[in-house]
């Protein structure tokens, strides 16, 4: 299958080049341009195929390493650097790590205390103010739900003809 593809590419390249030269010789410029385009496409395809084949060979070579060589390299591998050896030193002396640890803890604690105090002073009033604004649409009207006597007498409200309701309304309307 691969050989057929290579032969097809090479055949297309040669045929396209032949027809391009023939068309040029016959002063058929449009045909020459078309076959030149075919030649270019075949050339790019073949070049890409060659590059990919070379890359595949390189990859094949890198994957086939002699096990004996790999074993020798593994055994002679240098030890990894112990970058935290200083942590295992005797801690009788106050070295840099302890200094940084304690100092950093104190510093972070101080910053956290300041943040907490500032937040407690600023968030509660702001939250209460925001809650008050949110409760405002569902709050009772300033004058209460009951009408005053003048409004009751002036308007024909539902239930105004009931004696008990009129009595309640008059009471509610008093200041």
């Amino acid at each position, binding site marked *: 299958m691969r050989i057929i593809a290579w032969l097809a590419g090479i055949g297309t390249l040669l045929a396209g080049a032949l027809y391009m030269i023939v068309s040029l010789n016959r002063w058929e410029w*449009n045909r020459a341009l078309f076959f030149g385009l075919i030649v270019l496409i075949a050339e790019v395809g073949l070049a890409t195929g060659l590059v990919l084949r070379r890359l595949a060979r390189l990859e094949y070579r890198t994957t086939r390493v002699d096990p004996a060589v790999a074993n020798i390299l593994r055994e002679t591998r240098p030890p990894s650097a112990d970058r935290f050896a200083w942590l295992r030193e005797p801690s009788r002396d106050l070295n840099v790590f302890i200094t940084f640890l304690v100092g950093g803890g104190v510093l972070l604690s101080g910053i956290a205390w300041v943040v907490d105090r500032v937040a407690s002073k600023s968030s509660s009033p702001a939250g209460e103010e925001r809650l008050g604004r949110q409760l405002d649409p569902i709050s009772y009207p300033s004058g209460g739900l009951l009408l005053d006597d003048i409004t009751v007498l002036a308007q024909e409200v539902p239930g105004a003809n009931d004696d008990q309701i009129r009595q309640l309304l008059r009471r509610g309307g008093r200041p």
Partner: protein
Amino acid sequence: MKKLTPLRLLLGAIGLAVGIVGVLALREATLSTHEPVSAARETELVVSAKTKGGEQDQTLPEMVEAQLQTCRLEVTSDLAGPIESLGDGRFRAVFTPAMDETNQRQFRGCVEDWVIDHVSVNVIELANAT
């Protein structure tokens, strides 16, 4: 790096020579070298044409006329009269003044080239006449 042997050098020289000769031949074949035509007065053209997949309102005679009118712009000759239909997809046209050899090659190449879509024109006869 492969070693240069005399055989390889010989093959390389032959390839280079073939390439140079080919390019020079192609240059000679596509170079315009005009010369006066004194013996002939006009050039007679007979073509066969066929169309495939063209628009419905496009006829073969007008396609051939468009092709010939386009190609006559590449040479120094012009149509001397209307294009005559000979039947069976064949057409005849006369151009004046007569074309020299380079113009004939150029005109033949243009007429047989892919100039207009859906029409293929082949030159049957292209010759000067007195």
